[in-house]
């Protein structure tokens, strides 16, 4: 037998060890240091097999070390003392090659123009920069922190003509919100958009709600558990760092993975197998969200082979904040106070790394950017911040995200000036240099602006809850950022150069619309529609996600109204989640999302429009008021230095503008993650690149006046009528019907925003009037799949006639396939009691709708075309195929 020890690498956060150290001390015993490890015994394995097992299964080299045989150390190393040494970088003397090499090898990931700008600046100052100065600029100018590409100058040519953008985001996404707010006038319910760490909108007379969704893709690719863990931990700090601090009330998590059945031999070096990624990501979100006591109520998972090596992990958080606490202002003379976790080497270069493309070397190159979070540290931080907020013990707060202190202090002091005393920051272990302290992305830290008159009370409060709070500097009205370590000055930059000195990024963007091809019909596709429904229900995207959902606490905080799983057996797929953030009130918020990477290859304009429509109809389906829905954009794209890739993004942004304005649905916050590509070399040393499909996530935050009016998607009562609302078109392009039958071509679903607006309003009126017993939106899989889900969720059968469906499709032999499986937007299925039928039809008068059938007690799904049965199945069979794939 051989013993194998798996330990976290020194410096990687070890929450259990932290708690244990405290517990040992509490028992009056002494312990110098604690580390946890896993110990496994093996027999009959040769070294090679053992090595493979260790790397593929037991440990992840990004954060863990494997020791075969007895542990080689007598005591646990705690780092060696740091001797100060000022490091200056000979920048002025470098030629262009030198600048490029420095940017690459120093992991600054700055363009040559940017390096030249920095060089010119320091030549002007007649000195070379210190490493801290260079790092500070790199962090501040990173794609992650400044979104320089999308906020940059873009010359765009596409099917919608040529456009010159001076700031693409401002002229599309932001502009839409601006116009909507102008139209709303005095009724404007947006409070703060694209300004703070999260968008803020009005909730009721006392509170506002805030919403932010972030991505943590590259860390999750290298270490799925830690990446997702710190992803959710990070986005929770966004609402907490918004205004004077919002109380997190709900999480939403959306993932994109390669299919779990990807053959191991097809997984390139440097990439983890999708199954390992999925299990790691889900556990990471579970352990952090559950420990924080924040219900994870909404989410989605999409599968595509192109997410291999570069999965997408979207983590979102909704917060509740008193209206009077929605704004903040750091003040000259205030202390810069760091609270929460200590600073270590964690995540160094995360900000710049997340702007870089992943390669099969990333694992070793950027390992330092990967880390583990400690949810309890953040929960303590959360408790103390809200208490201090309500006692008025600080003037401003922000989170330490990418870039660590460097970004947090830089942003907070942008209009004032700051002096930071780096040697005062509490560190996890000895040996950190001033620069490491400055750019470390150690988790669970916030930075506050605390007035000298507030400090004592603030510090006492933190102490009483066991939270470390330390003065690390002062905001001073100099317009400069000065860093000191002891008596040594290690950086002195003007805020002006830091925030205004970056040369604008100028990019070409081209979008060539792929030629529309007819759907490649084949005989099998139309042979047996019952089998097709079953297949789609059992496909990765549509299949039940209960294995994931049940591992998340979606009830904590006691406000759950519409749960992610609904119906007679609590296992039907809800369209959106509804929670009551104020327990004494029946006013609620609805949280939903829309995304469809399958449409990206057809036209990113319609992909974006469809995503917005889906997010909206999900909210409307549960009873949210369409006139009060705010949305977020998260663009995850490939390398936008390719004009075609950037073009497909601009095309999507233009759609966002068009649809948002037409619907009167404002964007209030957003984020982009570019360079989502994975580069690797195959066995013969040939280099390959896998670029993800253009992926736009739209997250929606709706509002419900009285949650007792909400509806769920499960069928309720035999005899009730079933209505189909919205017209069906020949739009099978990118559909799940096309997917399961391997059919290329076809028309991608489009959105008619004007008609959508009317439809959403009419649907809301009907639901608010209490006329609808069940409502489900039509999305992946179209009509047949939506009806099947409603039926097996409710435990009642359904019989409908597709020939009655409102439609506008040119007669062809496959008309039935189109009616059953087309994914046309803005459609709903509604269960309406006979006595409410006329009132329902009256409210829907202006909208395409038809009574297509009724709820039965037969526990069968029967779909006819006129007289002829086209789908006939036992609900139990349909449900079984839907439950099976991800029942892990």
């Amino acid at each position, binding site marked *: 037998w051989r013993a194998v020890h798996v330990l976290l690498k020194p410096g990687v956060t070890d929450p259990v060890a932290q708690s244990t150290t405290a517990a040992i001390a509490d028992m009056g015993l002494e312990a110098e240091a604690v580390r946890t490890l896993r110990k496994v015994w093996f027999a009959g394995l040769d070294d090679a097999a053992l090595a493979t097992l260790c790397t593929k299964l037991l440990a992840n080299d990004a954060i863990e070390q494997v020791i075969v045989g007895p542990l080689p150390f007598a005591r646990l190393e705690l780092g060696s003392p740091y001797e100060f040494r000022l490091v200056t970088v000979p920048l002025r003397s470098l030629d262009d090659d030198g600048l490029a090499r420095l940017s690459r090898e120093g992991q600054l990931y700055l363009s040559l123009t940017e390096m030249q700008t920095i060089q010119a600046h320091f030549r002007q100052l007649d000195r070379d920069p210190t490493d801290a100065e260079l790092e500070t600029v790199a962090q501040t100018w990173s794609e992650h922190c400044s979104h320089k590409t999308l906020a940059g100058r873009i010359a765009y040519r596409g099917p919608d003509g040529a456009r010159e953008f001076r700031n693409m985001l401002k002229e599309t996404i932001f502009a839409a919100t601006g116009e909507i707010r102008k139209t709303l006038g005095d009724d404007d319910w947006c409070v703060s958009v694209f300004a703070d760490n999260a968008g803020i909108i009005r909730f009721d007379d006392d509170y506002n709600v805030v919403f932010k969704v972030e991505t943590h893709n590259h860390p999750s690719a290298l270490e799925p558990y830690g990446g997702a863990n710190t992803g959710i931990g990070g986005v929770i700090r966004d609402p907490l760092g918004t205004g004077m601090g919002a109380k997190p009330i709900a999480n939403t998590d959306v993932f994109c993975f390669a299919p779990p059945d990807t053959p191991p031999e097809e997984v390139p070096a440097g990439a983890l197998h999708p199954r390992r990624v999925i299990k790691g990501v889900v556990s990471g979100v579970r352990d952090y969200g559950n*420990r924080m006591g924040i219900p994870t109520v909404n989410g989605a998972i999409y599968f595509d082979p192109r997410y291999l090596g570069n999965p997408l992990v979207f983590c979102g958080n909704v917060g509740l904040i008193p209206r009077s606490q929605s704004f903040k202002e750091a003040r000259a003379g205030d202390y810069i106070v760091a609270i929460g976790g200590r600073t270590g080497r964690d995540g160094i270069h995360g900000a710049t790394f997340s702007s870089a493309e992943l390669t099969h070397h990333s694992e070793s190159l950027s390992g330092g950017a990967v880390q583990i979070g400690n*949810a309890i540290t953040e929960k303590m931080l959360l408790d103390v911040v809200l208490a201090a907020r309500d006692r008025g013990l600080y003037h401003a707060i922000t989170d330490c995200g990418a870039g660590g202190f460097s970004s947090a202090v830089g942003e907070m002091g942008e209009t004032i000036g700051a002096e930071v005393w780096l040697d005062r920051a509490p560190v996890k272990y000895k040996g950190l240099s001033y620069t490491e302290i400055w750019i470390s992305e150690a988790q669970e830290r916030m930075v506050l602006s605390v007035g000298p008159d507030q400090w004592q009370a603030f510090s006492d409060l933190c102490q009483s809850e066991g939270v470390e709070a330390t003065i690390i500097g002062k905001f001073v009205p100099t317009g400069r950022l000065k860093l000191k370590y002891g008596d040594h000055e290690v950086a002195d930059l003007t805020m002006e150069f830091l925030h205004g000195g970056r040369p604008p990024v100028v990019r070409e963007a081209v979008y060539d619309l792929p030629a529309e091809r007819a759907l490649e019909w084949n005989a099998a596709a139309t042979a047996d529609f019952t089998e097709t429904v079953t297949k789609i229900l059992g496909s990765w995207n549509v299949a039940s996600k209960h294995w994931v959902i049940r591992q998340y606490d979606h009830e904590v905080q006691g406000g759950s*109204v519409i749960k992610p799983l*609904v119906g007679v057996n609590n296992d039907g797929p809800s369209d959106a989640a509804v929670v009551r953030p104020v327990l004494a009130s*029946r006013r609620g918020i609805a949280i939903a999302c829309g995304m469809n990477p399958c449409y990206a290859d057809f036209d990113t304009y319609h992909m974006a429009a469809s995503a917005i429509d889906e997010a909206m109809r999900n909210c409307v389906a549960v009873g949210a008021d369409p006139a009060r829905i705010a949305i977020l954009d998260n663009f995850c794209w490939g390398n936008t230095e390719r004009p075609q890739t950037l073009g497909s993004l601009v095309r999507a942004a233009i759609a966002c503008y068009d649809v948002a304005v037409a619907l009167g649905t404002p964007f209030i916050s957003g984020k982009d993650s570019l360079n989502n590509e994975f580069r690797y070399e195959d066995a013969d040393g040939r280099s390959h690149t896998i670029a993800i499909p253009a992926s736009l996530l739209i997250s929606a935050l709706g509002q419900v006046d009285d949650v007792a009016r*909400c509806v*769920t998607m499960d069928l*309720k009562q035999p005899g009730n009528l079933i209505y189909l609302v919205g017209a069906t078109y020949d739009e099978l392009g990118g559909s799940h019907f096309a997917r399961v039958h391997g059919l290329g071509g076809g028309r991608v679903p489009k959105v008619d925003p004007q008609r959508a607006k009317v439809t959403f309003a009419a649907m809301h009126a009907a639901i608010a009037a209490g006329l609808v017993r069940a409502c489900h939106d039509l999305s992946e899989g179209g009509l047949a799949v939506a009806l099947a889900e409603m039926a097996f969720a409710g435990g009642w059968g359904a019989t409908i006639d597709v020939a009655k469906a409102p439609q506008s499709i040119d007669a062809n032999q496959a008309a039935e396939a189109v009616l059953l499986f087309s994914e046309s937007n803005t459609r709903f299925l509604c269960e309406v009691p006979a006595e409410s039928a006329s009132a329902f039809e009256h409210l829907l008068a202006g909208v395409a709708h038809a009574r297509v059938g009724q709820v039965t007690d037969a526990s069968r799904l029967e779909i006819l075309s006129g007289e002829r049965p086209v789908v006939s199945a036992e609900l139990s069979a349909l449900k079984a195929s839907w439950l099976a794939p991800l029942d892990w």
Partner: protein
Amino acid sequence: MAQPRVLILRAPGANCDLETEYAIACAGGLAERWHVNRLLEAPRRLADYQILCIPGGFSYGDDVAAGRILGNQLRHHLAECLQEFKAAGKLILGICNGFQILLKSGVLLPLADDLTGPATLAWNASGKFEDRWVPLVVSSSKSVFFAGIESMYLPVAHAEGKFVPRDEPLLRSLETNGQIVLRYGTNAALNGPLPMAPTVAYPENPNGSLADVAGICDSSGRVCGLMPHPERHIDPTQHPHWTRASLPAAGDGLRVFQNAVGYFR
């Protein structure tokens, strides 16, 4: 007597304290949330309260074992005042993590001389954290908290909730003393003797608890621990099926808190 005072004990990682405070307020109690550090500074203050409630969450991250570290703190630093609290005929309720803490600290059932517990809450049979609603039956009239309640529908949300008694005699004594007060499933009859195994199938028994035990009380009936979350079923719109029927006046969980508060009225 006036409004009973309830001390909700929160520790780093406790996260159900606010909704528990709300549930107690709905039941007519006067709840205050105390950080454990405050109580460690002034243990005597506990005497000012009639009810002690340890809420759900992940005290100290559940590191080492669920409830272990806070359990140790109670045992090392608060044993005496907790003993007096019990002796004074007052009530102690532990929900989810609070149940784990009461067991590990010996407040609910006495520990053996070697400090091992007579029973524990082990990892779920499914091996993972699970959030789901389960049917529950009150299987004994001994506990103050469940007086007059026959059955409830409440959510569980935990990774370590599988009730495992040390041995059959222990289970037998709990059973004969009526200390097994809450069980998973719908079958009210304690068709004992209870076996050292689950009799209700997953997922109705969500964690594989032996004898389907969801909650127990001490020999007095005034100290009680349960894994399900009554504070998560106060408003009727929390019931997973509320859209399928007409709204009742209140959620099943409210009665538990009303019983506790009513005990002092």
